[in-house]
């Protein structure tokens, strides 16, 4: 054992990295696609939505902070998810973290805001394909009907016994899952999908 642990490589490892092959196998049937999108930038932003800082931040990142509960707004390579009445998650591509934190703090211009890089706090799992809703319905009590929870909607809720941020997109759902729960949620998704993968 000491041998395999002997080499330090300072490589990043995403929370669901170990599931890549099983996700791929579960996606082979076509009815369902499971995958991890690792290392996305995620910045937790707390700011009074009525403050000038909130407006300046919207302008600075090119995405006005969505104020309607449970909605997401996108622009460029950023997406802003409503988490609470004064709380958002700004999601961007891998590596955007430090620059984005700076831009947000700069835009606040000394007003009270909270900007915390939480990129490694959660990982992103994709549940897409025709059976995505069926799979999620096994563990999510929200009404996922397209008329109710279509593209542009997001929610903090429970999936099975784990808290998740659920985001509906044009091509399926994304689950933002706490890193320590990633293995549990991955196992849960693979377990549920067994019937849908086998049944087509």
């Amino acid at each position, binding site marked *: 054992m000491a041998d395999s642990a002997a080499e330090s490589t300072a490589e*990043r490892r995403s929370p669901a990295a170990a599931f890549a092959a099983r996700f791929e196998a579960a996606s082979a049937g076509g009815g369902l696609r499971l995958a991890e999108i690792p290392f996305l930038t995620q910045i937790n932003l707390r700011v009074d939505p009525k403050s000038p800082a909130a407006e300046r931040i919207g302008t600075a990142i090119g995405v006005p902070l969505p104020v309607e509960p449970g909605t997401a707004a996108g622009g460029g390579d950023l997406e802003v998810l409503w988490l609470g009445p004064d709380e958002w998650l700004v999601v961007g591509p891998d590596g955007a973290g430090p620059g984005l934190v700076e831009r947000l703090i700069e835009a606040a211009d000394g007003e009270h805001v909270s900007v915390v890089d939480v990129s490694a706090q959660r990982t992103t799992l994709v549940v897409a394909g025709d059976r995505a809703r069926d799979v999620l*319905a096994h563990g999510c009590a929200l009404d996922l009907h397209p008329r109710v929870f279509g593209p542009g909607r997001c929610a903090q809720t429970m999936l099975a016994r784990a808290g998740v941020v659920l985001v509906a997109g044009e091509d399926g759902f994304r689950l933002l899952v706490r890193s*320590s*729960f990633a293995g549990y949620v991955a196992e849960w998704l693979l377990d549920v999908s067994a*019937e849908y993968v086998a049944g087509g």
Partner: protein
Amino acid sequence: MSVQPYRREGASGRVLRFRFDGREYEGLEGDTLASALLANGVRAVASSVKLGRPRGVYAAGCEEPNALVQIEEPFPEPMLQATTVELYDGLVATGLPGQGRLADRPDPARYDAVHAHCDVLVVGAGPAGIAAASVAARAGARVILADERPEPGGSLLGTAETLDGRPGREWAAEEVVALAALPEVRVLRRTTVLGHYDDNYVIAVERRTNHLGAQAPAGMARERVWRIRARRVVLATGGHERFVAFAGNDLPGVMLAGAARTYANRYRVLPGRRAVVFTTNDSAYAAALDLAGAGVEIAAIADVRQAPGEAWAARCAERGIEVLTGHVVTAAKGEGEVSSVEITPRVGGGAREVPADLLLVSGGWTPVVHLFSQAGGTLRYDEELGAFTPGETRQAVEAAGFARGVGGTGVRTLRACLEDGAEAGRRALAAAGFAMPAEIAVPSAEEEPAAAPAEHLWLVEAPENDGDYGTHFVDLQRDVTVAEVLRATGAGLTSVEHVKRYTTAGTAHDQGKTSGLLTGGVVAHALGVDVAELGTTTFRAPYTPVSFAALAGRDRGPLHDPVRVTAMHEWHAARGALFENVGQWKRPWYYPRQGEGPGEDMEAAVLRECRAAREDVAAMDASTLGKIDVIGPDAAVFLDRLYTNMMSTLKVGSIRYGVMCRPDGMVFDDGTVIRLADDRFLVTTTTGNAAAVLDWMEEWLQTEWPDLRVCCTSVTEQWATVALVGPRSREVLARLAPGLAVDNDSFPFMTWRDAEVAGIEARVCRISFSGELAYEINVSSWFGLALWEAVMASGEVTPYGTETMHVLRAEKGFPIVGQDTDGTVTPQDLGMEWIVSKKKPDFVGKRSFARADTSRPDRKHLVGLLPEDPGVLLPEGAHLVETSALPEPPVPTLGFVTSSYRSAALGRTFALALVSGGRERVGERLYAPVGADLVPVTVTSHVLYDPEGARRDG
């Protein structure tokens, strides 16, 4: 052609082979086990639970009280009703004596659960349910139609009625196929709605592969729990026929009239050859005529009424069936099954005995109001019906069809049910805000004869000179007779709820579907009061029995509860660590040394790990500690209010240990506070309390101090943490972080530094939970594994687990919140007066330290214990007493052991304990009763190792 002596001509379907009570039989596809047994002339299917009396099939659905069976193969499943078990090839079952046997092996089948939402949930796919669902679905509403049977039709399956000129069964099948094809409609067959809860939360169980036996596809869930949230619910649950209490009413061959009709029509099975019919209402006439048409000789109809429906009487006369009005059945007779029936005029005249092998009983029909009542609806007594029907409800639910008692004469009329169902569908649409469809076509049913009123007779009284009610059963499944009900009322019980508990009537797993009202009727009769006045017992979920396997679903085994792991988990597992559950986390407990020879046991491993930490260098994965980023201009003020000690004086770059209390002054959590900037702190919490502390902070900020400009963000999993401990830790850190000045002056105790460690951006904190020189290295959890591997790469750092961590901290007297505290312990009790600020005007818990209770001298203090025999390990939880011999109970206890370990550093065992007035007892000898022994221990300070703190700087 197989030999099924009671099967009607013209029955079709694949022949299925099955085994019952050790004998081989054949049945037909579409049979239930009950219909197949009846087709083979099997009369006694089971025996009764208390009296061991033979029992036969009584009903044709989930109301069956008698025919309890156990499926033996392919997998044992106890306590099923033969009337609801679909026959499959290879079925092996046995009749049960009222109770079954659990399987002796784990069920290999899959069970799962799913959530669903709809505008309208219709329960029951009989005529009313189909009508309601059709109206709702065609207007575009999201509809779920759930029915417990394998095919739709409800009551239509048992009658020979036609709709729009088609057999009712065919009509139902076609309607439901058309419904299921609509995009927003979900039809759930074989799905029993078990429970109706607040806000139209409805639980149903779908039996998906049970009917396939060994052919069930392996990957498919056998049963599925549906958790349905419906905006509106229509309960089209129909009715159950009830029987009448008379002597011998439990003999095999006695059967509900409607059930017999169903067997003849739906299953093409004759439940007997020569029948007597005993009825209180018109519905049994239809049964009698259908059975006569099927070839059963109807010896007589005993009708309790003087005036049955004229049209029915005329049809019977046409067929030559004798109708005895104003007669009752006084007894069913026979050895083990019915061979004759005693019929007696109600007024004058003697009894006559009619030979028969079948006695069909109808005591009237009871609307199925279980779900309506569970949903909080009231019930009211309907005089004409002789039963309780739905009254008021505050939920968005209504009953339709016979479940609402439509018809008005105590019998179901098809037209009324169809129209009522369609009306319910309309109302549901309106309530859910849908536009009404222009035209709603209700299918046309045959003209039904006008019904005569029913008479509600519950009990056929025993002859006065006899008075024996020992075989007048009211609850067949619980073997409760009128004699027992009379004993209950004779003992002074006047409420049906009390009689239920006294006699157990209605408590069997059939939930008293056939017996509930009958028991009430007999109680009313005995007390001389109205049934309406007595009311019903409470209806509770589940409507029918549900297996624990279905309720557990996939929440078992590895998915029972989330397993949370750190970024380094794979390394620990590969290294052979044993894990400890801490909340939902899996933490390495200890790492047995690997290599040749027998594996290292826990005691040896922990002593070795402890020595490495105290004498050399060791590392632990500390990533599970809760971490909260606290940001804002008022962050320092906020933390001053939550912690007992002062946080606002903490300098940027420094770290302070803190304790939080509840307002009652009891310790809630502890951890370190790191000042990152004037307006930014990083707070750590205990592993198990991370979410609770964040919630606690939010609660105070949102509800008490909304004026404070502070935001709290969880970063528990943002960071992975390695604790590097031991006199050589500085040297190892220096090698890993060549750019970091690690000498004591540059990097003193309780400070932090940003640095590159093993090429990874890190925040290094000089804190110690062991008393040794120690560091906690924090990196982005993406790099957690890389950092850990780098620390371990040289091979000189010993990995250690939570057990060693516990020993090290206990040697230093550091308490663990939740192990050495239990919500009744103050900081002062823990010997930490020093952490309770005297300067701050207030903080959460401060006022409680001035209460008389928190300064009582006999409060339990945290102390150390040294067993006099240094090899004896006290069990955690052991109590402590003053005397070397136990006095008579009750024995006053002084406290208890909270932590107990073997210490490598002390060369002996030791313990921490909460002891009444403990600090005043240092040096005293106490005793811990362990098994039969009283183990002598000496009370010491809780700090047993390096009390001077000489080791923390290395």
